């Protein structure tokens, strides 16, 4: 365990506050993917990709709501988009679209290769051996 570091909230405010100093965690120091020859930057890239996914989904959802409102009203305002409450059917459609998006984006992480390509020259494939 890393050495304990006591810190205070960075929030600057003139309001009376009820927060207390706390023991800072070291989760940002974690490198999980540096095994098996992968660089630690993979960790940062995964986090970055997740943030990108969140932003893309926010855009997709905004577009979907805009389209719903256009179909219903013929015109939209920013306020209408912000405050629109999807119907139960629309919520179900959006959830299905979200899950499809998440799956498409992240399922590749479930399927990690185990054969390094340089070593695959030895695969028992008669066609490859013939070409050699």
């Amino acid at each position, binding site marked *: *365990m890393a050495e304990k570091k*006591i*810190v*205070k*909230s*960075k*929030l600057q*405010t003139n*309001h*009376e*506050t*009820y*927060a*207390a*100093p*706390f*023991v*800072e*965690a070291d*989760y*940002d120091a*974690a490198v*999980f*993917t540096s*095994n*098996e020859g*992968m660089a630690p930057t*993979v*960790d940062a890239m*995964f*986090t970055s990709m*997740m*943030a990108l*996914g*969140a*932003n893309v*989904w*926010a855009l997709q*959802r*905004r577009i979907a*709501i805009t389209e719903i409102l256009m179909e219903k009203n013929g015109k939209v305002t920013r306020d209408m*988009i*912000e*405050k629109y*409450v999807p119907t*139960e059917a629309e919520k179900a459609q*959006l*959830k299905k679209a*979200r*899950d499809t*998006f*998440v*799956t498409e984006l*992240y*399922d590749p*992480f*479930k*399927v*990690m290769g185990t054969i390094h390509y340089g070593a695959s020259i030895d695969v028992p494939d008669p066609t490859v051996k013939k070409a050699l």
Partner: protein
Amino acid sequence: MKFWMNRRQVFQYTTAAVTASAVASLSANRAEAADVVKRLAKRGYDGIYARQPELDMESKGDFYSGIYTWRGQELERAAEQRAIELLSAKKIDPKKPMSWGEAVALIDKDPLIAMTCRARTSHQKLKYKMVQDYYHQHADEYLTEMEKADKLGPGSLELNPKMVIPEYTAHEIHSMPGGYVGDEFAGHMYDCGTNWGAYVDRNYQDGAHIGMAGNAMTPADGKVKRILDIGTSIGQFASSMKRRFPEAEVWGLDIGGPMVRYSHMKAADNGIAVNYVQRLAEDTKFPDNHFDIVVSNLLFHEVNYTGTQAIIKEVGRVLRPGGVFSPTDDNKNPETVKGKYTLWYNYRWNHEDWYADWHRIDFPAEFKKSGMKVVEVPNTPLIRGIKA
């Protein structure tokens, strides 16, 4: 529970089965509440709670909910299978008894298994950061909102900004920035974080807590006048107990000032009269034999060894004879190597810093030492304590 009812209707629905006098009491609460706490609710309400303040925040939260579900249902299953393959190659039974350290050493080099940790940590970091950034950027208006709510009812709020905060309570538990005590918007972060995480799809209208309250054990004599929820966090268990026992005096206690402020604001906004206090669970300041029921939800895995012993002793003190203690967490160790690995991850990198202490505690023995008879809940690993 139907979640499309408005926030007052949910309160009515959950009390529909209670006595006429109780309903009359609740109606009085609602009437009183009509002119009290007003949430900012910039985008209106979704059921009982204010919607997220911006569409993009709601949408990103929705995405993080989707990620949480995918990680649990897809990535973890793939990793579990990979762990079985790795252990099989080494001729090791996946359920062979071993320590967390031995489990980690066996499988942590695998990139797929490591990715489960990365996905968990990235998810925690991004969702909390988004919420914290938003409320810090809009701090003035949301701190003003809480200041107004502090002074209004129904229910009450006690803050103790000068109290001594034990160090063990001031960790950034489950990677939440500032933990329970360190950020003015801890309640806001916890609310979003749990709805887009551990409680995904089942608690955004308090459904999980209403279910827990429904299952809470009652004293054999049926008398329920006073209820205490220790480690109330954002107050949902306490407010759900009030829904179930509308005539009881209900208290919610937490070490985090920002947590009890948020609890009070939410409960009062729904017209629910709970008294929230910033105090220590091991030193509640209540008289001996005071409560008929004490409840807690997922408290003890966030408390160190001596703190847990002290809290159970305090529960034994404040319960009246025949009173019941109903905690919801159990410290059963997972059976599989991958389960132990995940437990270690949560301890070390999700900063569930007291997981190891929690797993060393003999809860039945502590209950007995504190004057409580232990009752097992059928078909669950849970126990209840009944004060002798």
